Every structure is written in C-alpha cells, then in structure tokens.
C-alpha cells in the first residue's frame, strides 16, 4: 500500500542571506489512506508549521529549506501554484484551532460552506447553498436549514467548529489536517467535536493529520503518533505502544509529567515527573530518535 502522504526530510525556516535558521530539522513521516496520524509536541516544537507546509500556506518569511512532500504520488513542493490551489480544499482540507477567527465574520456560514462546492465542483450558488444545508446536517448541527443563514458570531464555539469541519469535508478530501481543532473548546464540547471528526473521517475513509499538544486528545483520536521536539520527530509509534512503552527519553518525560486520572486513587498522590531533572541535557534529545516499524493499520484507533 502506498502512503497517501509522504513527508521526507522536510526542513523549513528563515533565511537571512546565506544563513538559514532551521525550525524544522528534517522531519519524515507517512500517512496511509484512511489513517489518523497524530503529531504531538509542546509549543514551538514545529508541529503547526509542518501542517502549513503540507497545505502550502506558509507565510513569509518562513520558507521550505529542503525535503519533499509527496501527496498521492506527487511532490507538492514542486507543484505549480495553480495545481496546488486546486488540491487545497478538494483533496487536502484543513481545520484550524480558533473557529471564531477562522470564519469570515461577514458571511453566513452557509455561504462559506457553499463556496467549497462552487469552487471545486462548479455548482451554482443556489445549488451550493442547498448542499450546504446537507453538509451542516452531516456535522449534526440542529435545524441546519435555519442555521445556514447564521453568521459565525451567532453560533457557539462548538457549532462554529462543526461548521469548519463541514466546510473542510465538503469535497471529500483524501487528507484532513486538523491543527489543534479543540483547544479553544470546553471539555464536553471537545469530546463531541472529536467524536464527530473521528466518525465522519472513518465513514468517508479520510486520512487525518491530527495536531495537538494534548496527549489525551491524541490518544483519543489517532492510530499512530509522532512526537515532536524542537523541530524533530523524536519518536513515532502506534498509539497504544507509544503510551504503554515510550522508548524515547523525551516521550517518557512527557508522559510522566501528566497527572493521570485515577492514579491518585490507585497509588496515592505522587510527584509528577519534572522533565528538567529527568533529562539532564536537553540538547542531546534531538540526536536520538525512535521510529517504530510500521504495523498494519487496524481499524479505528482507541477503544
């Protein structure tokens, strides 16, 4: 089986004349069709710029310094802008962190969804508007035929994120990039949105690149996980293996630093792992990597 997305040795950063400041230092990973792949890491580890590089929306002065990104067999970095644009939205779609600012405040959500059909499927606005109602229904927005006329500010954060998802999935993309899609949401709403993404993507066979700093969310969503640290992918493994048996020092520190629900009941209150005392020399961290050999994709992640 060929991977849907194959990121090879991606390097990006800023260039000052001859000098280059690297933010990503050779990141490689693959996502199979239909697979949900998680990138986890702390702020500044480079997970978000990775996703922007894939969809081709890096903002100046950030630029690609090296590597390749193969998507459905084509190197996205070598693709003409026009071709890349037609892929965006139709084959690769993206959901952003902050649904309020990611939606155009002056357009009804219906029109913003409809725009996808107009753009990629050549529908008329009237047709597209009808399809938008269905799209809203598919993300389980109650009374979609009314909600389609709402403006973003009239919706709650959870609903807005559903609109974003409806928009992203409108044209059945092969890959959905979800960049911290629930960070801005309350915990109960987060659970619903995560469930929605999981179910819709599973139903459509959409592969997901799921980016989060929250190990719990990653565990909920992903089949395989890559752990990023300082622009490097330091460990990659199937989710369960990674959590049960973290191989890399940094992953172990990270997991230890997390208060685990129920563990106080079982073991009493224990000190959390202080990553700084756990890892003596941080600079050494990026020298080592653990990439687990690929295991066949097996159904849905989590339990």
């Amino acid at each position, binding site marked *: 089986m060929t991977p849907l997305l194959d990121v090879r040795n991606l390097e990006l950063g800023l260039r000052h004349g001859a000098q280059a400041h690297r933010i990503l230092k050779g990141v490689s990973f693959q996502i199979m069709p239909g697979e949900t792949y998680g990138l986890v890491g702390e702020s500044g580890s480079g997970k978000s710029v990775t996703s922007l590089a894939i969809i081709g929306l890096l903002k100046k002065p950030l630029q690609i310094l090296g590597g390749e990104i193969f998507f459905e067999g084509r190197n996205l970095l070598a693709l003409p802008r026009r071709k890349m644009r037609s892929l965006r939205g139709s084959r690769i779609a993206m959901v952003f962190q902050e649904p309020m600012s990611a939606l155009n405040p002056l357009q009804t959500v219906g029109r913003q969804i409809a725009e996808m059909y107009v753009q990629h499927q050549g529908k008329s606005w009237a047709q597209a508007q009808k399809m938008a109602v269905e799209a809203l229904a598919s993300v389980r927005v109650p009374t979609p035929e009314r909600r389609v006329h709402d403006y973003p500010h009239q919706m709650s954060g959870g609903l807005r994120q559903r609109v974003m998802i409806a928009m992203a999935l409108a044209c059945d993309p092969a890959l959905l990039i979800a960049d911290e899609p629930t960070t801005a949401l309350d915990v109960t709403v987060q659970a619903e949105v995560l469930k929605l993404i999981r179910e819709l993507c599973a139903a459509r066979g959409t592969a997901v690149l799921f980016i989060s700093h929250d190990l719990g*969310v990653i565990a909920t969503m992903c089949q395989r996980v890559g752990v990023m640290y300082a622009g490097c992918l330091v460990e990659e493994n199937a989710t369960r293996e990674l959590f049960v048996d973290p191989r890399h020092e940094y992953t172990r520190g990270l997991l230890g630093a997390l208060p685990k*629900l129920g563990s106080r*009941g079982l073991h009493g209150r224990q000190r959390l792992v202080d990553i700084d005392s756990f890892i003596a020399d941080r600079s050494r961290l990026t020298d080592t990597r653990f990439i687990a050999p690929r295991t066949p994709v097996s159904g849905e992640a989590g339990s």
Partner: protein
Amino acid sequence: MNAPLLSIDDLHVRFPLSGSWFGRQRRMLHAVNGLSLDLAKGECLSIVGESGCGKSTTALSVMGLQEPTQGSILFRGKPFSGPQAPSRMERAMAAQMVFQDPYASLNPRQTVWQSLAQPLRLHNVTARSELSDRIETVMRSVGLTPEQATRYPHEFSGGQRQRIGIARALILQPEIVVLDEPVSALDVSIRAQIINLLLDLQEEFGLSYLMISHDLSVVEHMSDRVAVMFFGQIVETGPWSAIFSDPVHPYTRRLIATIPDPGAVLGLSREAVVDGPAQAPAGWRFADDGSSAPDVTQEPKPSELVEVAPGHFVRLSRS
C-alpha cells in the same frame, strides 16, 4: 472540623447586560447564583466547571475584585466583602492570587525585584536588609535564584514567569491563595513543575488554596475537596475521592467521562471510567441534567444541595 478560614454564603453576582438603557429595567446576567462554600485551613478546594459557569467570578469576589450583588464572604468569621469589608491593605495579608496567563500577570515595565519589593514597602517593610531577605527567600522557595530578581519579565520563560507570579502571591505571606487556572496556559512539561511547586509550597507554608480549573486531571491531582459548578450554581461538591470515584450528578459524570485521559482512553486504568446513567436518590430528581445551557438572565429553578454521603452534596429537586 474547625471553623472554616473562609466561608462564602449565598453569593450572588449579577452583571447588567449592555444595551436597552432606555426606560426599561436593565436585563441582568446571573453569573453566580447562591453559591456557598467553606475553605478550611490548609486545604485545597477546587472549583471546576466550563467557561462561563461563574467560577472565575467567584474567585474575583473572594479577592475583592468583584463586588458581590448579594451574599456574604467571611474570613475568620469577619466580613470580607460588603460595607464592612477590610481595607485593601488588610485584605492583602489574608488572600493573594495566582493568575492564569503568566505573560499578562507581570508588569513588563518593572523588574521582578520591583514587583516584589513594592508590596512589601507598602506594607511597611522598608529596611533594605529585610526587603532583600524576604525577596531572596521567596525567590528560592519558588525555585528561582535571587540574582534573577534584577531582570525584567520578558527575559523569563512562561514557566519561570508563573513562578514569579507565585512568588508575588506569597511575598506578603497570605493565608489563602486563590489559584486561577494556574497551569492551563503552560506546556505539559512545565505544568508538572508548577503543580509540584504548588503542592510543595502548600505543605511548607500551610497554605489554603482555592483553585479554579477546568482541567479535571489537575484538579484530581491537587485537591482535597472539589466543587463542580454549572451556570452559576454548585451542582455537586465533596471530597475529591467521592467526586471522582462516585460522581452522582449527571453533569459531573459527563465532565469526568469526557476527559481525554490517555489512560482512560486506551483502557489502561479502569478506575476513572464512569459507566451507566446517573441515578438520583430516591425521592429526588435532578433539577437540571447539565446537557443544555439554561437562560442566564433568569433566576434558576429552586433546588437544594442534598448530602448523599458525608460531606458529599448534590443539587437535587424534590420529585
């Protein structure tokens, strides 16, 4: 149990909604509705809930940053709010606060030393040597070196800033520290350090914590008692173990069930999983199951907190 250090009784906070100031009475947003809580000496009481549930308003009321519309707050039995409230200076000795955003909680134009020395001077600690001593002590106790005090906030990382914020809260040696989402803005690895620090400090100085949080795993880790808030009311309160192992209210159960805890998700620890529907005790029903937002401009329907186990209360209505 001794007399509580801080006791909040029937606290109401309402805000006028903007607009419609022509003629008619202003509509009010009911942020906190009849909240009652006691905080004992040396205990960590956490208020959990989702955004807009009124937990931060409660914290601000305790700190005197928000005037309660109704109800009383007593500190060691003396009024801590309303017309007989102590002055700002007296209040400062009783309670301090650690803020959520470490980037906004430090004055960018003051060095750490200034931030720490100013309140001391204000409270009549003027001798240079005593100032230095106390600043040095507090810096060390939060895991920073006294030399770092000469720097400005922007020279510190987020975790270090939060340490400075804690140092500032401790500099006047208050009895109560209100922690407003103290770790939610921090990265995972830093979060652990701050949690450890807070627990160490509590032990060391016998502090009482009133913690506001939406992160249940942190709450479980740190709290002695927990109060769950839903739209201005406490729906369930009790010892941490009761809340996490035997939640009664449907909202509490839902909250716990939706925590994306890797252990729970991957089925590594069965302890934390909440199964089955919520059951109200006989003769009672849940006034609100917490599945949809009530009208925040109205008084909530009458209900009461019922003790279902020692110290474990749940909000119920008579059926």
